[in-house]
């Protein structure tokens, strides 16, 4: 009854309590939705290019921002294909690799050489040669000798001697006795079309007449043919020993386990060995290592051992060098500019089968210098590629060695743009080891490529490896199939340093990436680094074994008042990332110029 006296006050009190209750009621927690499904439904049908575009859009860029200014330095040694990659670092780079990969895989080596010459902006011709068999080969040598002489006809003896001295620009520790500008002035006078035409002509004649040459060698055993440029020796089916040089320019051997000693040479030299487990020991410019000319070595079967020095085993210095081994488990060993090295020329090493070992110190195993193109093409087998261990990288380290090998492009900074190094391995579980600069990397307006088509491969490098580009150049490591492992200390695995594009693309397999710094989609000093993994359950690890850097997995830093671009995109699979923020079905933007985008597309973003 007493309460009845204060109905209004009671009502107000109740309302007040309610208001206080509502106001103080803890706000309902916002539930964080699972956005993975949104990612899956959105990206399922997207292509690699579309995903890359989205990654760029998230950092306020578009595909046309993947561009590198190439005219900051200009010179007349720049290859048009390098310009193409600089102007279009993603698609242009990928298309260039695929086109060249196709071109160099032609069964006919002369076509390979012709296409390589064309990539060096020349137009090599194949000159027709009359006759069949050995006479045709000898005739082609005469034609080529004429072409070589035309190639250097604009040069005086003195200038030729200066070109010869230029070899020192390539050899570590050697002091060139010539100024760069003077050397390059003379280089420009060489008629490269003629030089490469000479290689194309001899190789095409040799390959077209190989059966006839074999038949003739069988019937004309132990013979010696005199040609205007030297003797061609026809060996026996037994175990022979040869000395190339001192008048002998060519050997045709029908069989047996032979020993070849190959002296330093220039001009035209060749060996055709039809069978047996052979041993080839050479000096500089030997074993398909050309100097101012053409050098060819064809070994058609057997487990062979090749040991050359500098500019050997399918390499060239102003010329065309080819080594083609058709079968067997082979061992290749050399020092500098060996195993597919092109220096102002074309160098090809092609091994068709067997488990092979390639060992070199420096600038080898698909190395392309200025106006040069080096190719190493291994078609099958479980192979080991080793480059390094001899020349200290004293610019940076007291205990690491320079490699500059395994798909490496190199230029004469700042005087002349570089060339193309292309390593293609078609199958097998391969192991690649290099130290500083290697495994699809490049330096100074050049291109470094590896195209590995299958197998569970292991890549190990220290610095500037596995799709790394340094100072205005491009690189790409394209791994098509297999469960692959990549290990490097840094500046690797899709890293561009200083206005360069470094790319690593792995199409299939469960892959493992380990690096410490500036890797896995990292851009440094205005470079662009891209790592794309299309499928498989992958793991991306940033190791702290060499310190804590925090500059990998989608990282781009700020230099010269603008940014470097670092992109990592993974297009399918259940992936693991060591670094925070990176996970399946997410964008990660660590810096304004770095992004990781992990999505789930159909078949890894069906490349368009």
């Amino acid at each position, binding site marked *: 009854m007493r309460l009845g006296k204060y109905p209004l006050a009671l009502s107000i009190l109740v309302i007040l309590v309610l208001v206080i209750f509502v106001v103080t009621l803890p706000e309902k927690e*916002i539930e964080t939705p699972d956005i993975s499904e949104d990612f899956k*439904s*959105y990206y399922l049908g997207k292509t690699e290019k579309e995903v890359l575009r989205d990654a760029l859009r998230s950092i306020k860029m578009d595909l046309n*921002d993947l561009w590198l200014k190439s005219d900051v330095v200009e010179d007349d040694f720049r290859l048009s294909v390098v310009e193409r990659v600089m102007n279009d670092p993603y698609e242009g780079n990928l298309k260039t690799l695929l086109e060249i990969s196709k071109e160099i895989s032609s069964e006919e080596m002369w076509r390979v050489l012709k296409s390589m010459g064309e990539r060096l902006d020349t137009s090599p011709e194949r000159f027709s040669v009359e006759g069949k068999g050995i006479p045709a080969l000898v005739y082609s040598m005469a034609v080529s000798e004429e072409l070589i002489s035309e190639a250097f006809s604009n040069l005086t003896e003195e200038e030729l001697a200066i070109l010869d001295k230029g070899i020192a620009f390539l050899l570590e520790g050697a002091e060139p006795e010539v100024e760069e500008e003077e050397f390059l002035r003379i280089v420009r006078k060489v008629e490269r079309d003629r030089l490469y035409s000479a290689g194309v002509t001899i190789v095409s004649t040799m390959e077209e007449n190989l059966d006839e040459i074999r038949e003739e060698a069988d019937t004309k055993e132990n013979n010696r043919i005199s040609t205007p440029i030297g003797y061609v020796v026809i060996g026996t089916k037994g175990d022979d020993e040869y000395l190339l040089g001192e008048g002998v320019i060519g050997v045709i051997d029908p069989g047996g386990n032979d020993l070849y000693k190959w002296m330093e040479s220039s001009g035209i030299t060749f060996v055709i060995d039809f069978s047996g487990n052979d041993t080839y020991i050479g000096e500089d410019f030997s074993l398909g290592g050309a100097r101012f000319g053409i050098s060819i070595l064809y070994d058609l079967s057997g487990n062979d051992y090749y040991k050359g020095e500098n500019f050997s085993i399918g390499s060239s210095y102003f010329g065309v060098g080819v080594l083609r081994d058709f079968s067997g488990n082979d061992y290749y060993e050399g020092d500098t500019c060996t195993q597919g090295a092109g220096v102002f020329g074309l160098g090809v090493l092609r091994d068709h089968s067997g488990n092979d070992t390639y060992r070199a110190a420096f600038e080898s195993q698909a190395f392309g210098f200025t106006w040069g193109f080096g190719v190493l093409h291994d078609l099958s087998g479980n192979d080991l590629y080793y480059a390094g261990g001899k020349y200290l990288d004293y610019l940076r380290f007291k205990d690491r060695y320079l490699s500059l090998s395994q798909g490496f492009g190199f230029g004469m900074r700042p005087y002349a743009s570089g060339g193309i190094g292309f390593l293609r391995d078609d199958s097998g579980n391969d192991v690649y080891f290099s130290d500083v600069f290697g495994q699809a990397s490049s330096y100074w307006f050049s291109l470094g490529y590896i195209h590995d088509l299958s197998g569970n491969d292991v890549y190990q490098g220290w610095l500037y490896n596995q799709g790394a580009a340094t100072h205005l150049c491009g690189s790409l490591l394209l791994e098509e199939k297999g469960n692959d492992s990549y290990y490097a200390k840094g500046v690797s695995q899709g890293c561009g340093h200083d206005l360069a594009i470094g790319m690593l693309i792995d199409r299939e397999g469960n892959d493992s990436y380990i690096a410490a710094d500036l890797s896995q989609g990292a851009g440094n000093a205005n470079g662009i680094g891209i790592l794309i993994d299309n499928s498989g359950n992958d793991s991306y690890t940033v190791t702290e074994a060499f310190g804590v850097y925090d500059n990998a997995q989608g990282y781009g830093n700020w230099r010269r008042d*603008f940014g470097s*671009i670092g992109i990592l995109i993974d297009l399918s699979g259940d992936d693991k990332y060591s670094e925070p923020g990176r996970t399946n079905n*997410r*964008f990660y933007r660590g810096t304004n110029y770095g992004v990781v985008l992990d999505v789930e597309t159909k078949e890894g973003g069906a490349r368009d």
Partner: protein
Amino acid sequence: MKTHKLFFLLSLVIIVSPVLSPPLVESQGEEKRRRMDSLPFLEYNETFAKEVEDLFLKVASFDIRVREKYGEESKRKLIEMGARAVPPLLDMYLETDVARRRVSLFQIIKGIGEEALPYLWYYMDNSENPKAVSRLAYLLGEIPSKESLPYLVSKLKEKERYREALGSIAYALGRIGDRRATPYLVELAKDEDVFVRKSAVVALGRLKDPEGIPVLIHSLEDDYHIVRYPASISLKEIGPETIDPLLDYLESDAPSIAKGYAIEVLGSIGAVEKDKVSKTLLELLHSEDPWLRAFSAEAIADLCVISAKKRLVSIMEKEKHPFAKQQLVEALEKLENCEKQ
């Protein structure tokens, strides 16, 4: 009559303007000549040059063992030599093609500091090689002094001749920080070369001159991120005076990426006019462009617009675009943190 008046006024402005703002190039006069005549170290003997060279080559050695053992000490000695070391260093290495030497030269001259300036001006006056001019300009930017302004601007009179140096000149003008350089930088921000444009927009940010706002906003539409992103940073540097022009810009039909940068700038500096800025950002959450929705959510979170939470939640529930959705989720998490703070 009106035309005549206008013509008269324009003529007056043209006549009077040099008085109001004296041209930078001619302002040196006697002072400059006096300075040029009193550079005691311009001439040096071979022994001294060799001493400088020996020390320098240790600093810039290609061998890590040499650098580690002698590099720092040699650099210190060169810096301690002061202005005396500048002429031989410039004569020997100003036009070097070796990057390591170029960088070492810059470090040493920078270390010498203001003492080096009269020599840098002298070389600037007497250099016709664009590469040398570019490097001298860079050095003048590294040792900022308003007295350097006329030497830099004088080279802009022959823009095509010194094209290679334009970026470094813009850099130096920005580092010196004198707003008299703004008109030159506005011009350079429209240059055909992407790196010159970049250097100019960065410099405009360093000057913090609101006169630079229109060209900086226009630069958000540049074809290259090399210009766009530095332009957005420069707008942030200039500060709140950019807010209204940027809000107007968001009303325009500018490209999506450019608007994204504008939104980012507003998220960074919009706090002083939070209500006005957040109103526009909230509207942009309904944009048809998922990237603009995403960046707006991000900016709203950067500004800690706590009142927007419910709206973000309701938009998030409908959002299908993965990036926009992720940004909404992250924005809500950020706003929760704002609330807690």
